[in-house]
């Protein structure tokens, strides 16, 4: 972590929570949690992320976690790729599908509506803008307007999170710690 305050600057009560998480999970606290718990009255991005990732949507939680991993791959954010690949894999019970999607979107064994949606959020992330034709291409695959809005919300949340993870230099924890984090995200979400 590049800023010491994010590692050790939490309020006493929050420090106690971090100790508790370490004891219960028997893993080091991942940097994303330390960020989320630092001055939540200032950043506190967890509420937006939680709504995008766990709020009502026609996309499954596994689909949205895959979108998060895919956006993070485009942003070259190693921490978030690891965290959300693990969470998506756990939800689907299918690591190969997630790995194949990140390796090559065009040949991955996923449904066409999801593929078209990932293409759209990938372009938005890479080029910082999309145009109406990009939207029409997704609608043409049978994706609803609401599903597009929901995917754009995931894209927003992870274009924020990826930047923070890399700017603050989150450590990619051990697979055991990342899997513990993935289980936590599936049971408790992001708040």
């Amino acid at each position, binding site marked *: 972590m*590049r*800023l*010491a*305050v*994010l590692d050790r*600057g939490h309020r006493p009560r929050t420090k106690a929570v971090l100790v508790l998480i370490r004891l219960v999970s028997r893993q080091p606290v991942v940097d994303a949690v330390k960020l989320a718990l*630092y*001055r939540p*009255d*200032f*950043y*506190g*991005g967890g*509420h*937006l992320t939680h*709504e*995008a990732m766990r*709020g009502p949507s026609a996309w499954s939680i596994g689909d949205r976690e895959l979108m998060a991993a895919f956006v993070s791959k485009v*942003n*070259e*954010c*190693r921490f978030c790729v690891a965290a959300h690949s693990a969470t998506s894999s756990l939800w689907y019970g299918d690591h190969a599908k997630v790995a194949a999607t990140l390796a090559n979107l065009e040949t991955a064994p996923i449904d066409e509506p999801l593929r078209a949606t990932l293409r759209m959020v990938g372009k*938005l*992330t890479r080029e*910082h*803008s*999309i*145009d*109406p*034709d*990009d*939207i*029409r291409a997704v*609608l043409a695959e049978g994706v609803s*307007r609401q599903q*597009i*809005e929901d995917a*754009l*919300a995931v*894209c*927003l949340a992870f*274009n*924020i*999170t*990826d*930047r*923070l*993870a*890399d*700017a*603050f*230099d989150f450590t990619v924890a051990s697979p055991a710690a990342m899997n513990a984090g993935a289980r936590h995200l599936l049971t408790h979400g992001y708040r």
Partner: protein
Amino acid sequence: MSDITQLHRALIARVLNGNGKAPPELRQAAFDNAGLDEPIRRLIEKVAHHAYRVTDDDVAAVRTAGLSEDQIFEIVVCAAIGQASRQYKTALDALASATGER
């Protein structure tokens, strides 16, 4: 208005105008990625366009220029939210245009 719209607005209002250690004008400039002087400009430009290239030296230079860790935390958060929000707006505009509704 969906929940995400309200949460997004509240997040922007909080980081730009809520309690913070960095002056609001600096937070706004970081959010906009505009009108910044070195070495802050370099750090914020990287956060906006290729955050994976931010280095310890980029952060150290801003610290040496006189910003505290909390101020650096705040302007980086503003820069990340600013760029992601500009992307999001282009997408919502494209969606409205493609579907003929807002």
